[in-house]
């Protein structure tokens, strides 16, 4: 067994941690001793009322039933799960940074300075001219970027209704375009997994507002024709949007701005190693070229006139706000600290090692890996096996499996992204976990996983008979 130390074996039949409500609920009479008249209040409130030691043990136990990057390898393709340095937590925990968002600029020069510095870092790294830090996640960044593109077209009197997106793109691209009110034109991939330039030429036209592209794309291939792609989109009057999900593979080697992209978002929880917290918070800063800067959300931060301090300002034709306040501030601080820690050479080295690791792992495993060379990730195929079953069996070998069954263009895809943080021996172990699971018997695959906090979970009945709260479990 591999990575045995990171496995939480089921020792008893039932390792289920009691719900907080099962640890003791209490009901309080709200009307009792209330400063409010009864007709404005509820009658009673029922919530768990555990002691602090019970809380400590409950959440400690829950944490132990949870995989994390600090537990072991986490090669989820397109998710870029890499080590989160510990010191950034301490930097972000500075009580001086945790001020109320409505404080005056005069009294928050420190927060403004850090925002300004991070804007500058990100603009440099992406080859962009202006950056907003406000979007609270990658998909929020996408929406911000597309709304900025829309405002740009509207200002220039362009009536454009479509956004073109490759079939292999992240689902958020499609949902974002629809949320912004655009029709989606899906672009089939070429035989080599890249954008088919002829298909692109046929797809773009007077209605094209933008092309949303990830580069390297979702099977780890660099879109080598990117300059031509940019020309085609720009000649049609459209804008080129860069999805920053795979930026980790490009750090210091290529900049979206240099490739002709007009607008991009950065996934700081991926590229800049800020913890993802089991599903957020992330942050999705957006960078744009000069022509789009006047539409960015307000406020942006700049140096004041005599460079004695910093000030917020409203870009001339701002789209307004995309978050109620200033976005996910603590996450942005961690991104700043991470970028400063690595500097130019560290960022470039992160990309180099991530690419080295992906290619080495692709070489080592027995599964077929169509197309190459790869940047940071590759889509292996489980072929005749069910990718999801192979993934469940991998759990028994103490690793987190790759992303499965996506992108759809690769049958039974296992999209694998080791990132730069795994060393050779760890990659060898990962390869072994792949190969053992892939070559295992049908029976073993069906029965997996066996050594995890829960056995295979019935997803179908969860969706068919939704029970979404402990109130819905009553009587069971």
């Amino acid at each position, binding site marked *: 067994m591999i990575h045995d130390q990171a496995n939480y074996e089921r020792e008893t039949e039932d390792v289920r941690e009691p719900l907080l409500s099962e640890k003791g609920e209490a009901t309080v009479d709200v009307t009792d001793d209330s400063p409010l008249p009864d007709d404005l209040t509820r009658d009673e409130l029922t919530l768990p009322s555990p002691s602090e030691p019970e809380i400590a043990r409950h959440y400690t136990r829950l944490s132990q039933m949870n995989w994390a990057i600090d537990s072991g390898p986490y090669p989820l393709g397109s998710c870029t799960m890499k080590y989160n340095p510990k010191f950034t937590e301490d930097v972000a925990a500075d009580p001086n*940074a945790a*001020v109320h968002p409505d404080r005056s600029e005069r009294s928050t020069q420190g927060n403004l300075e850090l925002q300004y510095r991070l804007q500058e870092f990100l603009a440099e790294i992406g080859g962009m001219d202006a950056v907003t830090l406000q979007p609270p996640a990658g998909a929020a960044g996408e929406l911000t970027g597309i*709304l900025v593109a829309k405002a740009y077209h509207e200002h220039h009197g362009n009536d454009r209704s479509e956004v073109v997106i490759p079939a292999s793109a992240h689902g958020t691209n499609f949902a974002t375009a629809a949320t*912004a009110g655009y029709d989606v034109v899906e672009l089939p991939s070429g035989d080599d997994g890249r954008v088919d330039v002829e298909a692109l030429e046929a797809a773009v036209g007077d209605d094209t507002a933008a092309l949303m592209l990830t580069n390297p794309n979702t099977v780890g291939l660099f879109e080598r024709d990117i300059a031509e792609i940019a020309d085609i989109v720009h000649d049609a009057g459209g804008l080129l949007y860069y999805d920053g999900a795979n930026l980790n593979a490009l750090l210091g080697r290529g900049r979206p701005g240099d490739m002709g992209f007009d607008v991009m978002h950065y996934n700081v929880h991926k590229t800049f190693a800020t913890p993802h917290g089991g599903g957020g918070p992330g942050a999705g800063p957006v960078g744009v070229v000069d022509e789009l800067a006047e539409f960015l959300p307000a406020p942006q931060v700049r140096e004041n006139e005599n460079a004695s301090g910093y000030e917020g300002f409203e870009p001339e034709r701002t789209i307004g706000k995309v978050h109620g306040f200033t976005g996910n501030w603590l996450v942005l601080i961690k991104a700043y600290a991470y970028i400063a820690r690595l500097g130019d050479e560290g960022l470039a080295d992160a990309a180099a090692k991530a690419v080295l690791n992906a290619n*080495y792992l692709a070489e080592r495993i027995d599964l077929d890996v169509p197309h190459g060379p790869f940047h940071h990730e590759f889509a292996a195929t489980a072929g005749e096996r069910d990718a999801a079953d192979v993934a469940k069996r991998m759990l028994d070998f103490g690793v*987190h499996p790759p992303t499965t069954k996506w992108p759809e263009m690769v049958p039974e895809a296992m999209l694998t992204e080791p990132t730069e*943080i795994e060393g050779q021996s760890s990659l060898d172990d990962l390869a072994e976990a792949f190969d053992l699971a892939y070559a295992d018997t049908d029976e073993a695959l069906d029965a997996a996983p066996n050594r995890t906090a829960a056995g295979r979970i019935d997803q179908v009945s969860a969706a068919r008979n939704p029970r979404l709260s402990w109130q819905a479990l009553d009587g069971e």
Partner: protein
Amino acid sequence: MSGADGTPYAPHTDAETAEMLSAIGVDDEEALFDIPDEVAFDGEFGIEPRTEREIRAECSRIFGRNDDLTEFLGRGHYGHYVPSVVDHLSDRAEFLTSYTQYQPEISQGFLQALFEYQSMLVELTGLPVANCSMYDAATALGEAATLADRVRSTSGDTVLVPEQLREGKREVLANYCAGAGLTVERYPMADGNADVDAIADRVGDDVVMVYAENPTVRGCIEERLGAVGDLAAESDALFVLGSDVVSLAVLEEPASVGADVVVGEASVLGLPTAYGMGLGIFACSDEFLRQVPGRLVGASEDAGGDRAYTLTLQTREQHIRKERATSNICTNQAWVALRAAIHAASLGPDGLVDLANDCVREAAALADRIDGLKGAVAPVHDRHHVREFAVRVDQPAAAIAEDLEAEGFAVHVVGEHLLQVCVTDLNAGRADDLVAAFEEVI
């Protein structure tokens, strides 16, 4: 390996790198980059690497430039004391460094925590469905509007919101509405509450959503929400109610006043003010279960027949439904939801009710004292207040706020002669000093 040569977070020795390159069959890492020269980057960012220690000192110096003020600020964003147990448990790396729960068998811990968070919201709102978070109250409101657009298939394209609403919230809502072809329209307020007569005059076929907040942005408790709910129901508009999880502990259950959807903030538990970082709540009636934006955790069984948890109803989400998804939200605020759940558990129902009641008592007491000062009237609205209230001042409000800042206090300016003051457990101990400073500058 040091930060000056490369990333300190890759474990490769030179020998290993050479061996790996040889296994791949290339001479160096450069050979693996498939980037055409014309778009390759060979310049410099000009970012000097620093040591951990240097960065901690640098950031400490930068944040030290923020003035040390006692904040009496709120308007939708509040800080309460966060017990130490919240930091220590949520900072466990197994929570903090985990990803979305795509493999539920090794994510039972976080899934259960989110299931419990959802359950607490169900109790607080009285609505049967709560998702496991939105970014913040403003984006949750935007998502409520697009939900209204989907479920109300009338020809309507108007959402009604109070005239007293945070501008940022209104702008975020407008950005979500733009894509759905919706228009945001304001209804008037009457002495700090929704003007029910004006809403009655306005609702009709073209309205898909009526939004109210309780408490309002000025801290007033709404007194006729049932009537607003009835009006929305009669015209087949969605009634969306904004609140926060502390206020919900004592206020009328949203379900009982006819709310179809509750949006708002849960960051009042578990987070410091954090410069505006939030935790959006989204709860709704069963009718809209398959239209809910964001992630849902459901209970199920594992192969051994034990209760187990999983993300569920994912056919609503963008990784399956793409442009037909209910929302583009994917990453949310899961870890912040975990913090809110731990904080709520550590308070228990009596602690949460006490906290909410204190928010009412402290606001009333402080308003009363400011009202006693010459040149100030508080609260401006003759209502019950939670945490905050408006103050009418004879002199220009901006000048008074500036003078108060010089004395070490931050308050809101909400009109030419209107200030707003927010008091919570964190600053209540300095209420005497604020009143003294007020008296001085007024």
